[in-house]
């Protein structure tokens, strides 16, 4: 941990347009060429990126007051129910909520995408009425411009290291990991691997509450650990160091975001979700941080789980690294199985490059976390008592 830089020093260089910024892919060959110490000296920031389905996402909106005003008890946006048990006209639209008339073909994520495209959204709201909010129903249209706040607030994003899904049964499965072909006919995974934000900072040295991030096309922030956050690095029975389930809760202004980095998706037979584009810069404060940020696909392992077993704990069929997954085929029980990613590596690369560009131009400053995220946390089950 010899070389030490501070956030202040790095931000000063960024403002002067002198910061040396590379992506989490580029840093791998730089370290191979120059070694850790020289690279730590020369590189100021490493950018990461990811573009994958993140179900725990949604938008907090304030609709404004009508005349006469209504204290909303139930609300629907394009027939997608939104949660309104928060004050009179604050609502939360969840990405995975399905339409009441279009079922799995339209959901919260589609409303979000429609809002980003400037479309008019049908709003229906009802109430029992109170003395001060006498109105019982309103039917109108809103759009992204017309409403007050529209804040993307995602309770769990950037899942650190998701497992690989296979299906050993005789029947095709429709899951959130895509379609799983029977008899281990395919394997799906979801990660941006060596470009992934949390896999490049497994000890949460620089990613914490307040970290400024690229979110959906604009600057957003990490606000809390994500739900189900369980980041401990474990050593499995083969001696591999595996980082598991760290997650992030993120926030940003939806009005500044773009459909380029936020897309509605439908997993056939499973449901609607939102694909979120996130990029997180890692300041190279010391050589340990650089060593972590230089991780390559070959060094990251994840577990293969059999999704045909309908229990919380699914049987493991072994471990595989991301280089193998990205190659297009892995060996599962001795058989070569084709792989599919659900996360777009091409788009993750684009995000890491875009973030690199913004930092290099002095348009994006790094924010030191105001509070570190826990590095140990138990992921508890729901018991039936």
């Amino acid at each position, binding site marked *: 941990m010899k070389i030490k830089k501070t956030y202040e020093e790095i931000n000063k260089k960024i403002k002067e347009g002198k910061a040396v910024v590379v992506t989490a892919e580029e840093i791998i060959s730089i370290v191979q060429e120059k070694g850790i110490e020289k690279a730590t000296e020369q590189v100021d920031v490493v950018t990461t990126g990811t573009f994958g389905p993140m179900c725990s996402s949604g938008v907090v909106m304030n609709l404004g007051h009508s005349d006469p005003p209504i204290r909303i008890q139930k609300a629907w946006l394009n027939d997608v129910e939104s949660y309104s048990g928060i004050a009179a006209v604050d609502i939360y639209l969840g990405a995975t909520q399905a339409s009441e008339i279009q079922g799995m073909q339209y959901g919260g994520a589609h409303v979000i995408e429609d809002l980003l495209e400037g479309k008019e959204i049908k709003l229906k709201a009802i109430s029992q009425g109170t003395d001060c909010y006498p109105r019982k129903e309103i039917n109108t249209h809103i759009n992204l411009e017309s409403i007050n706040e529209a804040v993307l607030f995602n309770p769990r994003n950037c899942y650190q290291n998701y497992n690989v899904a296979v299906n050993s049964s005789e029947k095709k499965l429709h899951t959130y990991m895509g379609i799983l*072909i029977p008899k281990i006919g395919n394997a799906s995974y979801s990660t941006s691997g060596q470009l992934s934000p949390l896999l490049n900072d497994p000890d949460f040295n620089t990613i914490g509450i307040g970290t400024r991030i690229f979110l959906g096309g604009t600057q957003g922030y990490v606000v809390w650990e994500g739900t189900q956050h369980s980041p401990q690095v474990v050593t499995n029975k083969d001696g591999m160091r595996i980082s598991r389930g760290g997650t992030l809760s993120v926030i940003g202004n939806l009005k500044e975001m773009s459909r380029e980095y936020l897309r509605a*998706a439908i997993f056939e037979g499973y449901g609607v979700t939102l694909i979120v584009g996130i990029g997180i810069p890692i300041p190279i404060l010391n050589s340990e941080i650089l060593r972590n940020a230089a991780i390559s696909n070959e060094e990251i392992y994840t577990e293969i789980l059999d999704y045909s077993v309908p229990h919380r704990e699914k049987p493991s069929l072994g471990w595989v690294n991301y280089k193998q997954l990205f190659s*297009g085929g892995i060996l599962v029980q001795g058989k070569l199985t084709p792989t599919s990613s659900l996360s777009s590596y091409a788009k993750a690369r684009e995000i890491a490059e875009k973030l690199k560009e913004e930092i290099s131009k002095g348009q994006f400053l790094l924010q030191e976390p105001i509070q570190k995220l826990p590095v140990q946390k138990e992921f508890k089950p729901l018991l039936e008592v």
Partner: protein
Amino acid sequence: MLRKKMILTFPPKIVEEPVTYKLIKEYGLWINILRAKIEPGNRGKLVIEVKGERKQIDNAIRFIRSLQVIVEFLEQEVRWNQEKCVDCGACVSICPVGALSLNNKTFKLEFNYDECVICGYCVEACPLQAIDVIF
């Protein structure tokens, strides 16, 4: 040299006649059978691709039709909307013939239309609904 993809639907009675053999031997066509579902006593379906001179293909089609086999041409098989596609790769492992792959340098989706057998599995697998099968 013309290249045409077509679906041949055979009525039960002539399913046992070696039509493809005749198309090659007597009509001089290059044939690639993309998909076949032939059950004795039932209607059979063949998806084939043929290559040959226009006259050869026309004559062959006349012959096939004379056997009461229905011939349907596939003009545009699978439509890949590149604007909707985000290059996630969900479709790659679903394709039974490997017509879909991610380029190992750019990681962008590549669609090999020549290999495609129009099974339609990719349509269901695409989370962005960027693939469509039309006949």
